[in-house]
């Protein structure tokens, strides 16, 4: 076992960890915020909104995240310079760093999955509770914010834990673009030092610790809910 590489490469690994956490936290938070209206649209929306929301979820869940990521970066992104006037007026868009593409793709993908989860969650709240809320004079917005949404989210918390862990384990895909996440940092160490197993073992350990922290954090929230048997 060779561990001599670890200390000199700690700054690189720390930078990689920051990028991995940025991708995870940003895509989970923003993705979830997007997922609520998309999920709701599938339950209460009119035919047009419903169809659009369903098509969005089908695409996001029906194609690999890697394909979506590459379609954005190597596909759409590389078409920008061909649009007349782009090079002169929108150079920043052409030069947009790969990390923005990663954040964009990961967020949209997470939103697609969570919208489907939220759709089921909204449907699972008993009709009677919603009718009771309306009966005491709550507005539609109040019914949603005080009764429907909280009850729905609490029911799917265990599912969400799994989804967030899944998202963490998707983050290494970012390293297929010029983004130095934890996986990319480890890969660079591997190629610099020709030490193969130890950096990968270290990488596995870090992901396990992160998963443990996520499980614990969500477990804490789950325990806050009084259980009614």
């Amino acid at each position: 076992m060779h561990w001599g590489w670890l200390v000199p490469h700690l700054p690189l690994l720390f930078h990689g960890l920051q990028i991995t956490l940025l991708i995870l936290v940003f895509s989970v938070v923003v993705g979830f915020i997007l997922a609520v209206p998309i999920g709701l649209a599938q339950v209460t929306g009119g035919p047009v909104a419903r169809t659009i929301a369903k098509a969005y979820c089908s695409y996001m869940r029906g194609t690999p995240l890697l394909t979506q990521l590459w379609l954005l970066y190597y596909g759409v992104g590389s078409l920008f310079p061909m649009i007349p006037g782009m090079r002169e007026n929108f150079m920043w868009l052409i030069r947009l760093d790969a990390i923005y593409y990663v954040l964009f793709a990961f967020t949209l993908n997470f939103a697609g999955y969570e919208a489907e989860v939220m759709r089921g969650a909204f449907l699972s709240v008993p009709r009677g509770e919603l009718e009771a809320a309306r009966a005491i004079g709550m507005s539609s917005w109040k019914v949603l914010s005080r009764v429907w949404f909280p009850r729905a989210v609490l029911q799917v918390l265990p599912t969400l834990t799994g989804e967030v862990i899944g998202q963490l384990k998707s983050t290494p895909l970012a390293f297929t673009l010029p983004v130095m996440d934890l996986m990319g940092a480890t890969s660079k160490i591997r190629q610099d030092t020709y030490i193969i197993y130890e950096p990968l073992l270290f990488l596995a350990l870090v992901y396990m610790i992160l998963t443990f922290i996520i499980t614990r954090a969500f477990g804490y929230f789950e325990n806050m809910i009084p259980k009614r048997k």
Partner: protein
Amino acid sequence: MTKTKTLLMAALAAGTMFAAAPAYADLKMGVAAEPYAPFTSKDASGKWVGWEVDFMNALCADIGEKCAIEEVAWDGIIPALQAKKFDMIMSSMSITPERAKTINFSNMYYNSAAVIIGAKSDDKDFSPEHLKGKTIGVQVSTTHAAYLAKYYEPKGAVIKTYATQDEANADLAAGRLDYIMADGVALGAFLDSSQGGCCEQKGAVPIDIDILGPGVGFGIRKEDTALLDKVNKGIQDLANNGTFDKITATWKLEGKVVTPAKK
């Protein structure tokens, strides 16, 4: 019956002599069987051609030896040299300290130039001072990445690393990078492609042996010191009389390979 047997024997003997024909050559060169164009590859008729083959013919004429090519698998090329299956390795083999423990190397006879490629609309200057604030793409953990970190990053260039060379090439074509740096021979293929139409070679960077390595040499058995001296003298002769430049021009490798300097 006896007559037939004799005839058969004669035919067999002739066959053996025929098969052993290359053994009459004074010097046998071990070349990896895998094609490595434009240095060593086979043409449609199965004849070895390439920059290295032309160079070998010129060198053998200079040192007064008759040379022949012996094909061998790249993986076993050093053991085959030790087992005297041939006399010299001529297979674009980079001179490394690790290999030099087992075999001797002749002086460098070529080194792939490390080149910088950029958009045709940009000027030809590619000095570190001029590329301040520009973005340069390079494959991660290569000698070129080390070169950029030593000479270009301290002067203010932004270095972006890629897992593969193809991705860096694609991003240069998409306008996300100002320049890329890589092996001149490998990038020649990219520039010839439709994607590479955007860009041109700005030039080769000054050689730094510590980073880019000493280049390619012949591998020769440790005990064959007389042969080593003779080959080194031949390489210098070819450098002095301009043969290297002629062969390089034949294979359109100007600016893509570096050859020994005149002395």
